[in-house]
């Protein structure tokens, strides 16, 4: 039997992490499935009682999604259209049970290649706020996840929030997920994207990320650059070329072949752009 701590304040939590290795548990929706038929003998830090880590809030120049914000909170928080993609992802994570318990931060920290939240966070330019006894730091979400199940988080750190910078008004966002059944499905491929129009109706800025096609979700910078200056309209989808996804490294697994993932990614990218360009 491991030790279990569920502190009410952050300092106590950080002290516990500083004192020794502990597995952090938030919604538990990744924690328990990894331990089916195995003893629950880790030393655990349950962070769900910590004050002030639940409510999504407006900050100077952006939004703060704290560690305990759940997928349901994302849907119900009344967030602006910039978050439409993340909200769409929230509705497609597992079933409602999972959305009610699972946290956005947990999804990122778990660092699954198939985490639906991550492409959106990359497309939103999210920053990850980490706290420890020795202070706070922030990292871009893109740098935070370093591989399959690995992140830049030190064992003594807690992710306290995701910080989403404001984007120019009129920025749109979208999320597309491809799976082999309607609910409760691990993505074969998913796309998160934001698109900012210029005054002349062309693309001023695009952020597009693909998940489940590499160990870590990836931004497609070549495509993003090629989109800038293109008119936002029915022709936008045609900007996607096979070479834009050359850097992806999908694998064959029980869900799909690698070749299929590439093929589907191109289709999904075109559909994502078509959705973002729709009037």
């Amino acid at each position, binding site marked *: 039997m491991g030790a279990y701590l569920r502190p009410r304040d952050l300092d106590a939590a950080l002290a516990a992490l500083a004192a020794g290795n502990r597995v952090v548990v938030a919604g538990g929706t990744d924690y*328990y*499935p990894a331990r089916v038929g195995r003893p629950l003998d880790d030393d655990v830090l349950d962070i769900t009682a910590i004050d002030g880590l639940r409510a999504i809030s407006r900050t100077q120049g952006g939004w703060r999604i704290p560690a305990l914000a759940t997928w349901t909170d994302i849907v119900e928080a009344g967030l602006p259209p910039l978050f439409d993609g993340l909200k769409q992802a929230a509705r497609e994570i597992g079933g*409602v*049970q999972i959305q009610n318990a699972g946290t956005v931060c947990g999804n990122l920290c778990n660092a699954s290649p198939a985490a639906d939240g991550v492409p959106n966070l990359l497309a939103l330019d999210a920053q990850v706020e980490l706290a420890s006894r020795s202070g706070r730091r922030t990292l871009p979400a893109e740098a935070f996840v370093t591989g399959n199940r690995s992140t830049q988080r030190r064992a003594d750190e807690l992710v306290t929030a995701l910080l989403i910078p404001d984007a120019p008004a009129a920025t749109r966002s979208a999320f597309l997920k491809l799976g*082999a*059944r309607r609910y*409760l499905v691990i993505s074969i491929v998913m796309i998160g994207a934001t698109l900012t129009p210029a005054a002349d109706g062309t693309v001023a800025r695009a952020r597009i990320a693909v998940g489940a096609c590499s160990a870590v979700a990836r931004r497609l910078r070549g495509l993003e650059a090629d989109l800038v200056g293109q008119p936002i309209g029915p022709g936008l989808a045609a900007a996607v070329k096979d070479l834009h996804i050359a850097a992806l490294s999908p694998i064959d697994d029980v869900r799909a072949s690698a070749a*299929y993932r590439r093929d*589907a990614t191109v289709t999904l990218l075109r559909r994502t752009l078509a959705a973002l360009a729709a009037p």
Partner: protein
Amino acid sequence: MTIAFTVNGTAHRVTADPIRRLADVLREDLGLIGTKVGCNAGDCGACTVLLDGRQVCACLVPVGQAEGRAITTVEGLAASGTINALQQAFHAHGAAQCGICTPGMLMAASDLLARKPHPSEDEALDALGGVLCRCTGYRKIVDAVLSVGAPAAAIAPAAGTAVGARLAKTDGIAKVTGAERFGADAWPDDSLVLRAVRSPHHHARFTVGDLAALQARHPGLVKVLTARDIPGQNRYGIYPTGKDQPALAEGYVRHRGEAVLALVGDAATIESIRDDEVPIAWEALPALAGIDAALAAGAPALHDDKPDNVLVRGRVARGDLDAGFARAAAVAEGEFETGFVEHAYVEPEAGYARRIGERIEIVACTQTPYMDRDELALILGLAPERVRIVPSAVGGGFGGKLDLSLQPLIATAAWLLNRPVRCVYTRPESMASTTKRHPARIHARFAAAANGKLTAVAFHGDFDTGAYASWGPTVANRVPVHAMGPYAVPAVRCTSAAIHTNGPPSGAFRGFGVPQAAIAHETLMDELAAQLGIDALEFRHINALRAGDRTATGQLLEASAGLAQCLEAMRPRWHALRAAADAHNRSAPIVRHGVGIGCMWYGIGNTSLSNPSSMRVGLRRDGSVTLYSGAVDIGQGSNTVMVQICADALGVPASALRLVTGDTDRTLDAGKTSASRQTFVSGNAARLAGADLRQQILRLGNVGADAPIHLESGRVVVGSGAAARAIDLAAMAEDPNGDVLVGAGRYDPPTTALDADGQGVPYATYGFAAQLAAVAVDTELGTVKVTRIVAAHDVGRAINPTQVEGQIHGGVAQGLGLALMEEYVPGRTENLHDYLIPTVGDVPEIETILIEDREPLGPFGAKGIGEPALIPTAPAILNAIHHATGVRLRRVPATPDRVRAAIRAAQGKAAP
């Protein structure tokens, strides 16, 4: 740590390790077993409860997080003592079959309805999307949720009118209140816990090291069972000649998940021991994965008596095959492949055993109490009478609970230790160690003359029967009988082989190989129709087996062969939906529509084997009637159907009957719940028992055969008006059950053995069906959405139309899974997120058309429906994909990558 929370309004303080799953604490510590556990991984939703009014999986919540919060479980829904409107709707709609998913479904729906009293269908789907159901196909659940507040009138048929009525399940209330006791839900207080340690290798030798050291480290470890501890013979299997499976392996394992040892002790100790702590030295051997490896020259023999790894072959041959092909105007040929399919019942295997003096009693989920009894007697070295099987409620079976699983282990431990011993499989354990649907590789050739009549069929199917025989012989024998499809064919040669590999044992799964064969015959039927320029439905209508025809085994179909009627009933839908799809596709859209058809026939009962059922019905002094039914209800509804049949045969209202089921000490052998046989075979036994009791009562009253019977306390009144006579029951002698009169019935369907060419009468009767599937195929992504199913089934007589529809819906959902998403990969998909079964959002509207072409041998004309429901669905979907896209998928599941690859290939592009 002490944690305080409320459950259903009652305050609780529990002392528990706070990281324990809330589901476990509710069940084990608070005794609230209404909350079910199907996976412990968030995948099945059976454990859904409300936490501060929101649905969550109780298997993913640390009980520490419950501090100060309010939990609602299924037990809280009927808090007022009567079931609430939602539960009432589930009960009336037949939304609970086995009932294991029902508490989770009810809680998910409660969350929705509290927020949105009149939800749309899409909102209902979203709310229920996290709960899996393997039985119902979800449609009746959705109907129930959407109908809350518009209650249906309760159905209480008068005497003589129960057959054909939509009677709610006789065991239904317990399923909607959470009171039903499944395998994991009851156990004696002083039970020890057992956990098997299983092979991580597909094929290996092993030696067991120093167990004393392990026991010294864990004082709570009472016993480690090894093969040496098995008191009787360490071999079991379905067939007397096929007892090849050890309860615990003897130094050698043939499949991943095979049990090697069993740890027995207190719950905390058993939970705390990691598998890698158990001293087992493994020597992995090369594994025979798949049919080719097993048949390759020089492949090792997995069983000494099967040198070529061929377990058994099957054959049906009739007519002049060469002549049949020679006179054909069209020939279609193809190779087809299917994979392992997992039953994925939501209830993992569970139960307990206890020794009572010189007898052993096993309370566990099972589909076949009497066969379990006899097998366990051999394993324990006891006379069968010293083994008592008391089936728990069964949370889905579909064939997977016909084989023994945990029973030999808990029985041996309880016998040796003289303590009750309990075991609950984990989901990965259940998936790795229990039987699967046989993977098949089929080569078939179909030929027809210019007039559209089939002239010849040649078929060979190799079936991967895995490590042990299990039901492999049944598959090998059943397939050749059915492999030409439900058609009259003058020349046939159908052969099969069941081949041992190092896969999991392939056993019984809804259809015994016929669903795999149907994929082949229905694809080739479509191709022949196209070659001949005949409409696909009409081509089947031309060839449909009809009463008066002879089957490929030479059997004369004397009556009740309703395929033509099924097709006729379907014809208007077929034309309308085909035309609508063609119209949609005219603009060359990316998402193309298609409509396909699939037909099937299915022999009811065991193939050419005696498979009798016996039942008794007793009358007590208080005027109550008890039906002693050994037929196990695994959700399909035999507990209701037997009552309906017996009540009508006896001539009393169904509500007058009480039911005692399963228990081998209290009921007679009603055979296995398999082969779609219970309604037909056991139903006949129930009918005969009811008629026998009626005869005895009428004789005592000395009245005519048509006289009405009125049950009253202490007496029975027979006849009416002036001719009425009262029979005094109080004066009659009681038997040990408390019955004063007992009617008995026995039925064994008339069949004959098959000769070397498979000629004879393998089944007394056959079910027939045609289904139509409409699909939308996204040609760029290869995703297939089934948008509609029309299912026309000849069931002889629908004893309970609601239940027949429920079987069809559930079968369709499983057929859809077979077609599009289900493939078990040993060692890789041992959970319900890598192994996908349809969710509530994947099953479309299903229209059922019941054709009632009475079977003279059937009880009130009835045949079976359990397996027929599944068989035509996958081929109909594959044919619909072809209609939509022009591509043929000959390998299932037709996953998006396979469909897309086929489309690319047809476009002349490299497969992605």
